[in-house]
């Protein structure tokens, strides 16, 4: 689920941070820049793990701030295809379910990746018809799902007013295997 990524970035350190020790100031700037943001193909940045190297400190002419080239590692949330994760149901509608991990809420579970004879009831819940036994997916269940694919859609240039907020990283999940779905189905 989590990986470390080594990044090099040229950072401009604003002059009002000159009173702080260098590593603290740089860490603060990196956190403002990267924390909770999605980097394409790397995933969602969770935390700055460590700073490996700080280089530079040049002041360009006409500027009051110093520029550093920093090598650092970030903890990225990037599940691999086929990884099994556990999350909760956030929304449930005719097209499928949306799951959430607390810190990441853009996990879609489309209807075709639910175990085969599933149907959508009028109360808004999906139910799996397993050899005659009806197994519903309740809203408070902890769901185990397998990651089917991850997409990083490009940033839209324009959006209509009521469109859903843009999701820079979308995970498609599947529960069409033994052992997946609400834990209560298998325990």
């Amino acid at each position: 689920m989590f990986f470390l990524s080594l990044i090099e970035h040229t950072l401009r350190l604003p002059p009002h941070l000159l009173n702080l020790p260098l590593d603290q100031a740089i860490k603060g700037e990196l956190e403002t820049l990267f924390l909770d943001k999605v980097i394409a193909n790397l995933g969602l940045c969770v935390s700055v793990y460590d700073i490996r190297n700080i280089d530079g400190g040049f002041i360009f002419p006409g500027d009051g701030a110093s520029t550093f080239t920093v090598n650092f590692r970030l903890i990225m949330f990037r599940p691999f295809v086929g990884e099994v994760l556990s999350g909760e149901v956030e929304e449930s509608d005719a097209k499928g379910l949306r799951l959430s991990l607390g810190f990441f809420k853009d996990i879609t579970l489309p209807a075709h990746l639910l175990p085969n004879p599933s149907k959508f009831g009028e109360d808004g819940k999906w139910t799996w018809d397993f050899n005659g036994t009806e197994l519903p997916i309740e809203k408070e269940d902890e769901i185990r799902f397998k990651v089917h694919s991850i997409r990083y859609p490009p940033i839209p240039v324009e959006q209509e007013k009521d469109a859903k907020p843009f999701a820079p990283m979308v995970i498609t999940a599947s529960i069409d295997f033994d052992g997946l779905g609400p834990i209560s189905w298998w325990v």
Partner: protein
Amino acid sequence: MKILQTNAGALTNFEVLDFLRFRGASTDPTRVIANVAPSEFQVYDYLVQSAARNQTRESIDEFLTSCAKFDLAKAEKLNLINIRPSSAAEIDSIVENCEQRMGNEDEALVKMIIEMLPAPGKPEGIDEDPTEDVADQEAMEAVLPSSTKPGGTDEETVETVGDQDSVLTL
């Protein structure tokens, strides 16, 4: 920004949890003073209610040395540590071609997991004997008729964390 190495190492949930704890994250109200951002807290809250909360570095090391004989891929070992399955059906979704590769040994693997990795029983990781954890969890579930999981908080507000604690100390 230049990406030097996309993958400089995989981290188990336990390692990320440990890192956040080391920075000062915790579930009690002193968390507001800690040097941890709100988005990091959301990750911490998620990890604290997963199987990682009771794990220790030693238990994970032990588990890795013992499962060497099962010939599992690195990703499968990572999944097993993060999810901590407690039955053979759950292993099937984690290990590919389970029938072919392991056949009858999957029960042995499940038993080993239950022994070595502590059960995600109580909220504030008390590292006791894992079988004792499972027994306590069953006793608690018998007493509490509600469907709340022991130690699992779904909301991220500090108030509900407080409520959950008071329910469990009964």
